[in-house]
């Protein structure tokens, strides 16, 4: 197990740096290309939510990103000191709706749940907001993403 941590300003220009960090971590964990891409998108969505919702805009605070790299498994932990943001409170988007019935919002959290194997959110006054996401190497024949299955959904 190896751990890499970086702290970046909470602004959109930091997204690419974080993407590079988690991409390398995912490759070091031996994840396959589709899983690496899943991690990239999930981290981008999570950090966008931190900037927009927890901090209420750019430069509201910092984002700490920790990658725990194990063989075949990557855990990404994102910490911020913004307002508590509870992904479980975000309504599930209707992804079968027709064009005119599509509403904005909710797709980011939905993608995080679908793309990652585990998504957990905790918020305490001491630790701030802590989002933990896990992605495992998919073995042949396994279906991708399971965080939206019962028992693995975002914790409040």
């Amino acid at each position: 197990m190896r751990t890499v941590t970086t702290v970046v300003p909470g602004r959109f220009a930091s997204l690419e740096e974080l993407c590079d960090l988690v991409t390398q971590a995912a490759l070091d964990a031996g994840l396959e290309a589709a899983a690496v891409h899943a991690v990239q998108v999930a981290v981008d969505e999570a950090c966008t939510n931190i900037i927009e919702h927890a901090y209420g805009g750019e430069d509201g605070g910092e984002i700490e990103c920790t990658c725990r790299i194990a063989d075949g498994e990557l855990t990404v932990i994102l910490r911020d000191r913004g307002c508590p943001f509870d992904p479980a409170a975000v309504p599930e988007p209707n992804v079968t709706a027709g064009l005119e019935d599509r509403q904005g919002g909710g797709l980011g959290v939905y993608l995080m749940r679908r793309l990652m194997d585990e998504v957990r959110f905790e918020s305490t006054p001491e630790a701030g907001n802590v989002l933990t996401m896990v992605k495992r190497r998919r073995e042949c024949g396994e279906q991708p993403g399971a965080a939206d299955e019962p028992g693995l959904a975002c914790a409040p």
Partner: protein
Amino acid sequence: MALEITTEQLKRCDMIKATGRIDGQSAPKLAEAFHALIDAGRFRIVFDMGGVEFLSSAGLHALIDAQKTCKRWNRGEVVLASVPPQVYEVLEMVGFVHLFKIYDNAVQAVGSF
């Protein structure tokens, strides 16, 4: 890689080509490219995604907004071309594969208009 967008006016439609990351930072740039065409009264648009490394929800919102506007009164639509497999997976997850015609390459997409 930072997002690069080019727009090309063709005989029967327009083509927007994107290369790089469509994320929370760069998605407004994509939305601007669509709006520039729409504001000019051009509603038949091919979006060539061959160079897109990934597409976040901010980019998805830009796409759906453009599609809603272009399809109004049957005046046109946005079609997608050369969608990389991993980006297609995201489009499939959010049900966009039913809201956009998707072509293997830009030539086929342009030919659909």
